[in-house]
């Protein structure tokens, strides 16, 4: 997995609450059997005037010019500034895949839906949680200044702006470690294979009906 330590980048907006994963990557693109290539279809229905089709070239599709991420000033954004309960709904990991493929390295929002939040960490995408007031400040600064950038530092768990704000954010220690080191979680768990086997043997002895029925 891609590691995340420090990132400085252009901030782009997604200024609405309860953005769902259907909105982030619509259903027709879930037919792919690949992990990559979802970036051109990120926010497809908000971004383009026509209906997107899987596998189709997006470079000449008509854009919805009123959609903020289509504004020239946000081109190349790598930090997505969003509102509360971002990523609600479907568990599709295609949502972080699409954000990451588009070029985002981090999302900043007051809260996230649980499954989306978890999925981000598996893909080197950092979901930063700040308070609603802090997110409001960042929205105002971003709107006021073209080319607005900020810095996210994972080791110190801080977001810093050029205007002098320093916001600390919280996250679980194990998630931080995995992200900092780009660790292979499956590899880590397999180091515990003996512990798993021991648990499994005990469970099979006490709950035999859980094992063996499906063949």
């Amino acid at each position: 997995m891609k590691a995340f330590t420090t990132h400085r980048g252009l901030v782009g907006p997604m200024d609405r609450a309860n953005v769902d994963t259907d909105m982030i990557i619509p259903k027709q693109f879930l037919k792919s059997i690949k992990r990559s290539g979802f970036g051109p279809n990120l926010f497809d229905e908000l971004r383009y005037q026509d209906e997107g089709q899987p596998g189709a070239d997006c470079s000449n599709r008509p854009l919805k010019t009123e959609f903020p991420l289509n504004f020239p000033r946000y081109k190349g954004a790598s930090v997505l500034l969003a509102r509360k309960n971002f990523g609600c709904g479907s568990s599709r990991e295609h949502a972080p895949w699409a954000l990451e493929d588009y070029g985002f390295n981090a999302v900043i929002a007051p809260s996230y839906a649980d499954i989306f939040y978890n999925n981000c960490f598996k893909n080197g995408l950092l979901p930063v949680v700040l308070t609603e007031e802090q997110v409001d400040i960042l929205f105002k600064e971003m709107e006021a200044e073209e080319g607005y950038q900020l810095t996210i530092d994972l080791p110190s768990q801080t977001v810093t702006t050029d205007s002098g704000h320093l916001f600390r954010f919280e996250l679980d220690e194990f998630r931080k470690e995995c992200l900092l080191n780009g660790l292979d979680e499956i590899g880590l768990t397999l180091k515990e294979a003996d512990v798993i086997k021991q648990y499994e043997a005990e469970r099979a002895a006490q709950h035999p009906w859980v094992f063996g029925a499906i063949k």
Partner: protein
Amino acid sequence: MTGRTLYDKLWDSHLVKQNSDGSSLIYIDRHVIHEVTSPQAFEGLRLANRKPWRLDTNIATPDHNISTDKTERDAGVAGMTDEVSRIQVQTLDDNCDLYGIKEFKINEMGQGIVHVMGPELGATMPGMTVVCGDSHTATHGALACLAHGIGTSEVEHVLATQCLVAKKMKNMRVTVNGTVGVGVTPKDVVLAIIGKIGTAGGNEHAIEFAGSVFRDMSIEGRMTVCNMAIEAGARVGMVAVDQKTIDYCEGRQFVPKGEMFDQALACWKTLTTDADAQFDTEVELAAEDIAPQVTWGTSPEMVAAVTASVPTLDEQPNEEKRKGLQRALEYMGLEGGQSIDSIYVDRVFIGSCTNSRIEDMRAAAAVAKGRHVASSVKQVLIVPGSQMVKAQAEAEGLDKIFIAAGMDWREPGCSMCLAMNADKLGAGEHCASTSNRNFEGRQGNGGRTHLMSPAMAAAAAVAGHIVDVRSFVGGDR
């Protein structure tokens, strides 16, 4: 020692290892697999030169993007007209064949929507941890399972290790006491709960549904409720074991028999919350306050009683709510203050992992019987949740009732709940739908979804607009 909740008990009994960094390793008993969220996981296994940890834990079936049209379905995987979907379903078949994973293939008896299939085959049983790459996995919690959706990286993790790295959630109890009125169904109860706590109300929590309403509810009804826990933000929803749970499980295909069943039974009976257990969050609703519910907006929390009106901008407490409401009204093509039953519907969808079981089919048929779809309605799709539900409904003659009413009787699958196949809404079309999400574009680009119960959806099909099903009960035919 203080008492434990059902969730505490399920968590404790699956804890493989508690790590010093606050994370835990949790054992997974049952892994349910479908075509959409698994191909990248199997590919990941191969790239890392790994194999599935255990085979008898997995059960697979295609459901999300298969056709519900009989002619196309009869042609099998090879006959799927959408080439991208065909490759995905073929990939599931190939992966299951390669590793020896039990799969109920496209037209095999047993196939169905993953969350209909698991319980009806007895593949999910009380006390299990159940995961699937689908957010509606909480459905299985109706059988007192610890069940939740996972992403594709975790699908691969479970395949490779039989475990998940997890953090314990908080405990929430939603209690609904009293008796619901005639025409008020499990769908209405769960929509009312979502309306009360909001789509983020259950974030970071596991919800236990408790109280007389759930005790009185059938297991299929409990599945409808647990299914939509995620629409209240909670990955996990569950109901404690009682005699109904045991009666439901006994005799199903993968449920043990004889002595082993008795052994299982002794274990299952402990799967209740202790009387002195503490919850982090408690929510209460009164059954008598719940009327048939309908969503009018673009989030499941945008819901109201069928007798109510669409909210107005003036009523909103703050600017954020006003902006959200305005956007939803524009998308839905509605005016604030218009009555819910003045909303006309273009299509009706009765199906999905929320409402496609035999009781749902019966409820819809009871309304449809002797009536006919309104001439203004373009299509009414009735999509049974599984091959077994379809067979049972046909044995009861329900298909004939639907067909006589001018409705389409289809083959099992997810269908228009998420519109990955040909079943979808056109831009601007309103749909009375028994599914679980009314997000923008969910049922088709520009489509407008109104979530409701199967009986309410059938009534809307007949009336041509949203209507209080209670006005149909005992009405003339």
